[in-house]
Structures are given as C-alpha cells and as structure tokens.
C-alpha cells in the first residue's frame, strides 16, 4: 500500500499545477474567465505581475517540497526499505541553509513590492510645487493634491455618488447625484473620495485592482487611471448586513466627450426632476 499512498501525495502537485494552469490558459467552458478579471486600469498590471511573480516563486517551492515528500515516501516505504534507518538528529548546515534562503527570498519580495503599495495607497496624485526656497525636489516642496472628481458614499445597501458640478468642488449645491452609477473619463487620472454613511463597506473595483474599506467617521481617497472604455462592476467587499450581497454598482468608463455629455445630461435631468435629491449630510 505504500506505493499507493505515495502516488496519492504525488497527485497533489500534479493536480494542483494542472488546475492552476488550466484556469490560467483555458478560455472555454467550464473554465472561461476563471482567472484574474480583465484589467482596465493603467497600474493594474503591477499588481498582476506581483501576483504572478509570487505564484511562480511559491509554485516552484510547492512543486519542489511536494515532490520531495512523494519521493521520500516512495523510497523509504518501510515494507521495501529493509536496511536500518538513518539514525541522525538533524544537520546544522542544512538548518542554516534552509533558513537563510527563504529569509532572503521573503525579504526580497517584501522590499520589491513597496513601491507598488506606495503608488496605490500613499502617493496621492498631485502637482509638486517649489516651496519657499524656489527650487523643486527639495524638502520644502509643496504638493497640490488633485481634487476628487466624485464622492462615493457607501450605505446599506447602495453606493451614492455625487459629482462636483460646474464649480469643480464636491459638497456644494450644484453637485450632481447618482445612485450605483459611476461614470469616469478614460485615460485620465481620477481621484475619488470614498466614505460611509452607516457601517463598514468596501469599495472594490475588480477590474481596476482597487479595494478600500470605507469607514464611518473617515474620508479617504482612492485613485487610478482607467485605460479602456466599458462597463464594469462595483462590488461591496466588506460585510455590511443582510443586503451585503446586493450592494452592487456599475462603473462606466467613457471618452472625455461622452463623459461630459453624460454629466450635463444628468445635471439637466436632476434640475427637471421633482425627485432631485435634497441636500443631505
């Protein structure tokens, strides 16, 4: 039976790699679109590349260790291996080797990705201005942050969106309101202000590799640059109550011209409609 059990453990790396390879490469039923969804943000590839880097790196370790497990089970099956066991308690050299190599690899991964993290969450887009010394790239530089194009508010169980009206500032009386319907211009860096009215939600754009929890009492900024036109999901990714599953919005990415047209239309509809949302907050 030792042979049978060894082969069962061999099936783990074989099928494991098989499933991932099939999911990555197959595009027909039943495995169509069973991998990272279409990426429509300019920096999305950075996260995808990191994902793949870690996938290949861990994949090699997975296959290596799993094959070693299989091979040892196959070779040292007690029914077949009639000699005495190797009576030893360990190896100092091996311990050092297999501590240092993973440590270096892990440290490398950690440092390698810091820029991607900073781009996504820390370095908010803005224009750098020379400070008092009149020179650029010195310590007293000022950053004029790009203003948000819209404010997205999560509440049970919808996304309320308000666009800066003609004055370009969100939170004034000429704002344009929509529900679950976010429109953005393509090929422009967009900044969104996200917040919550009630409980935690999470603003998740799978196609832009963007996710940020919204927390009542906090106002946060997210930013990305859409690079393709189309219509995509806005998903709520943090449990927010019984209706969490239906807290779905749509994001429409369109050309600047179409976007301006849409915003003007919305403004007109809002003014005409007697149901215009009154000033909230």
């Amino acid at each position: 039976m030792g042979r049978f059990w060894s082969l069962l453990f061999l099936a783990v790396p074989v099928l494991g790699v098989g499933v991932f390879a099939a999911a990555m490469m197959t595009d027909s039923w039943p495995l169509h679109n069973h991998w990272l969804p279409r990426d429509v943000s300019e920096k999305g590839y950075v996260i995808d590349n990191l994902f793949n880097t870690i996938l290949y790196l861990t994949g090699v370790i997975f296959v290596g260790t799993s094959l070693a497990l299989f091979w040892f089970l196959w070779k040292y099956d007690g029914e077949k291996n009639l000699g005495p066991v190797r009576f030893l308690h360990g190896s100092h050299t091996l311990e050092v080797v297999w501590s240092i190599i993973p440590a270096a690899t892990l440290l490398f991964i950690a440092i390698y990705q810091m820029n991607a993290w900073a781009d996504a969450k820390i370095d908010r887009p803005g224009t750098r201005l020379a400070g008092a010394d009149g020179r650029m790239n010195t310590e007293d530089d000022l950053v004029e942050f790009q203003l948000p194009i819209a404010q997205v508010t999560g509440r049970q169980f919808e996304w309320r969106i308000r666009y800066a009206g003609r004055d370009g500032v969100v939170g004034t009386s000429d704002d344009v309101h929509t529900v679950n319907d976010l429109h953005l211009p393509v090929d422009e860096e967009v900044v969104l202000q996200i917040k919550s009215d009630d409980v935690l939600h999470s603003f998740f754009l799978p196609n832009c590799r963007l996710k940020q929890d919204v927390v009542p009492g906090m106002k946060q900024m997210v930013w990305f640059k859409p690079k393709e036109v189309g219509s995509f999901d806005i998903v709520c990714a943090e449990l927010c109550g019984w209706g969490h599953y239906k807290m779905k919005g749509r994001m429409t990415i369109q050309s600047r011209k179409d976007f301006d047209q849409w915003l003007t239309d919305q403004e007109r509809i809002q003014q005409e409609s007697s149901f215009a949302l009154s000033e909230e907050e």
Partner: protein
Amino acid sequence: MSSITAGSHAHEHESSATHASFISTYVFSRDHKIIGLQFLFSTLLWFFVGGLLALGIRWQLAYPWTNMPIIGKMLFPGEGGQISPEFYTTLFTMHATVMIFFVIIPILAGAFGNYLIPLMIGADDMAFPTLNMLSYWFMWPAFFLIGASFFTAPYGAGGGWTSYPPLSVVNEAAPGSASAQTLWLLGITFVGISSMMGSVNYMTTIIQMRAPGMTMFRLPLTIWGMFITAILQAFALPVLTAAGFMQVMDRLLGTGFFLPEGLIVNNSIPASGGGQPLLWQHLFWFYSHPAVYIMILPAMGMVSDIISCFARKPIFGYKPMVYSISGIAGLGFIVWGHHMFVSGMNPVLGMTFMVSTMMIALPSAVKVFNWLGTIWGGKIEFTTPMLFSLSFVSMFIIGGLSGIFMAATPVDIFIHDTYFIVAHFHYVLFGGTAMAVFGAIYFWYPKMFGRMMNEQLGKVHFFLTFIFLNGTFFTMHVLGAVGFPRRLADPYHYDTFQHLMPMNRFMTWCAIGMVATQVIFAFNFISSLFFGKPVGRNPWGCNSLEWSAPSPPGHGNFDFQPVVYRGPYEYGHPDATKNHYPQIEPPPENPTEVPEH
C-alpha cells in the same frame, strides 16, 4: 522534585474524596483524562454541527434561493428549508464561530492538551485539577449562549465571526439579530475564560510537574506546542475579553468606544461616539492573529510526534523545531495588521506589518523542511495516523505558501476578502489542523480507550476526506483569483462572477461528500469503543511516556514512578534492543546513571 511530591499529595487527597459517586468521577471530574475526553466528545459533536452549517453555506452558493433538501429542514425549519439573506449571514457567522471557538481551539488545548500533558511529562495530574474541571464547565454557558444566539428569533447573530462594528454594535444595522449579537459576545467571553483557566494550568503543569529527568529539551514537541500555545493565550486573551466587554457596553450602555460621533444607521439614535470602528479591528486581531497559531501550533507538535514514530527515525532538528514554534509565537504578536491592509489603517503602517508577516513564513518553512528531513531515510509505516499527519504536511505547504500572497500588500488589495483568503485558511485549519486532529485521534485512541480503531475504515476515511477536501478547497484559489468575494449570499448577479456557478456546484458536491465521509469516522469511533481490538501499553511502539502507562491509564496515570533517560525521538537508536527506545528505559551500559535535571 518537590513539585512532584506536592502533586502526589494532591492525588492522594483527591482519591479519598472522589471515590464514590458517578457524578464526581465522570461529570464533575477533576481527573485530567476525563476532562480531556469531555472536551473531545463535546468538540466532536460541535464539529458535526459546524460541518452542517458549512453545507448550508455551500448549498446557497451552488443553488441560490432554492430549498435545501434534508439538512435545510433540520437546521432552519422556520425558513422552510430555504435560506434567506439574513439567515445566510447567520450561517457563515455561526460556522466560523462553532469551528473556531467550539472545535479547533478546545479540541487542541482542551481535549489533547488535557489528556496528553500530564501523561507525556510523567505527572499524575494537572497542577490545578479543580481549575481544570472549571475550564470545561465554563464552556457550557458558552454553548448555551451561542446556541441561544443562533436560535433567537427571527435571526441569529450575523455580524461575521469578526463582529466588526458598527454593524455589530448598532441594533438598527442588523434588524432581527439585536439580542443575538449580545448573546454571541457573552458566549465568546465564556470561551475566553475557559481557555484562560486552561492556559494557566498548562503552563504551571509543564513548568512544575515534569518527571525526574524530563528536562525542557526532552519534552515531546506536542508538549512544546501546547506550552507555547498556553503562553499565547495568556497574553492575547485579556485583550479580546476587554474588547468584547467594550463592545457589549457599546451595545447596552450607550458608550461609544467603536462608534464615531453622531453616527446614524437606519434612523438609530445618533451615537454619543467619539470612538473608532478601527479600534475594534486592532484589538480583535491582536487576539485573533495569535489565535491562528493557537489553532495550529499544538497540531504541529502532534504531527511531529506521529511522523517521527512512524518513520521509525528521530525527529530532524528537534531544537530548530522548538525555536521555530517559539519564533512563530513571538512574531505572531506583531503581525495582526495584515488583516487590515485595506481597512483604512494608515498605509505606512501596512508596510511594517507586511515585513513582519513575510518573516513569519520563515519558521513555518523551517518546520516543513524538518518534517521532510524526518521521513528521509526512515522506514515509513503507512498507518492511518501517519497518513493524516503526512497530509497535514502536504496541505500545510499549500496553506503556508498561499499566505505569502496576502502578506504582499499590493496583491492583498485585490485578494482581500475574496475566496483566495477562504482557500488559504481552510488549507491551514482544515487541511492542516483538522487532519492533524484526525491523525491524533487514531493515534491516541488506543491509549484513551484501550482499544484500536479499525485501520481499514480509518484508511477509507482518510482517502475520501483527502480527496474531497482538495476538491472543495483547492478550487477556492481559482475563485479568489477572479476576485469572488466572501460572505455574499448571491454573488451571481455581478457580471464578473456570474459564470462561476458550475465551479461552485462542483465544490458543494465535494463538501457534501466530505461531510458524508465523516459518518465512517463516527461509526469507527463509536463501534471501536466496544469491538475494537484490545491493546497493551504501547501498540505503536513509541518512546514517549504516555505509552508506558496502562491503556487506559488509571487515576494517577502511572503505576510506577517514571524516570526519564533521554528525549522522546530515539527511534532506531543503535543501543536499543527494539526499533524504539522508550524514554523510561535505562541505558544498557550504565543502568544506574542518575538522570540530570
């Protein structure tokens, strides 16, 4: 060894007092073995409940909004067998709560910790037998409170096992589960009290009551796992308990630890506030990340013992194993922020948590390499406990490596709160810990009951569980790569996820197979109590002390004073006459050698 003397005094005193009644022997027992078995039976029953709850979740994801056959009627008769969105939140909340707080934590520390610690260190009982008894009976208020929370009309607690405010604090945010959430919080508090009692007891017992010759570095790794776990619990639990009380006060007394000023949910009264929802997450994960290790370190220890025994070879790198357990535990206190990378926590802080989290993969890797080193060059006996332990290693490799994805902050932006995470922790907790627990049950069953479990049935149980577990959980990685979110009652109305139903159906049928397979285990477990092959003291040919006690050990455990001459892993020692070399066997060349301590 004054502590040993003190221990046997306690024992004499106790045996005169508890001689008579059934109640004091089997119900309010102070014998660590009975308490261990009480924990074992209770947690196995809850394991079954938790499995059924999981089937409820799986059913909804495979066949949304359709009547669930058989189990639906049992679990939620009030719903007519159909899962409502409210009930779905209760299902996943309770599945996690039951599995974590009523199964994994108490089966490792409560059942195996209790049963094995005194036997493996050569003591006659725990240091504090009464405290030990109380640690079991404090689970019962928790059982009732969580049970009441589940059955409270109209909906049970639905805030997730993480109970994030404001959803978990403001009644209006989750209409219908108002009192249920309070009951849930109180239930968790009782689990905490129970674990705290256990942890104090385990630490004291392991430090104070080891048999002569049993130095710290002669302890089996099971005991090291239990010891470090006890320390983790002692340091982490007070934080959870305090945070739980703060949340109860927010709910009942109108304080505002976790609510921002003026928060209104569904026309609730504005919060008096000044608090922070993120504060709860910090406090919760300050406990619950170490809890992840509380849920695996003892399993790692037991697996090490089983693998060494059935490879008939010393454990490879005993001290590196001990140091890596300690390293995991130490680092475990400074990585909690990895659950909060996208929570709104300062992203600069995310970077430091990323580095510490990456580093915690290191001791885990060292452990895997040492297990591989242990079977290398051995004479492997493919017994049921060995198969389960080997599958622990195999599955832990997957669960450990997938953890690196989410430790990488930019990648975590995409996979956080998706099925990639669900896959990861099920590989660690089911593929890892639960498989180790099965192995440990098959392994120590003859010691507990004096009879073997059936090996053939055990192997069938192993084979089917192993197949179905991978069918259920491996595919979750693929769902996670698409971004498929957790905790959605109906993910299919999103364009991004609507095509994923066939794969979910496949997983659901594997999950059904997995739960059904456990019937084989239950049958084997129960029938072997009566019809299993009777065994002597050491049916597997193992070295550690518990195998030199009678099976099952009587009150006071050992019918002789155990004296320890060596570590527990001297299998295949050239001096030994057999292929094992028990810790109590005096060395041949110098039988009168005084053990150092």
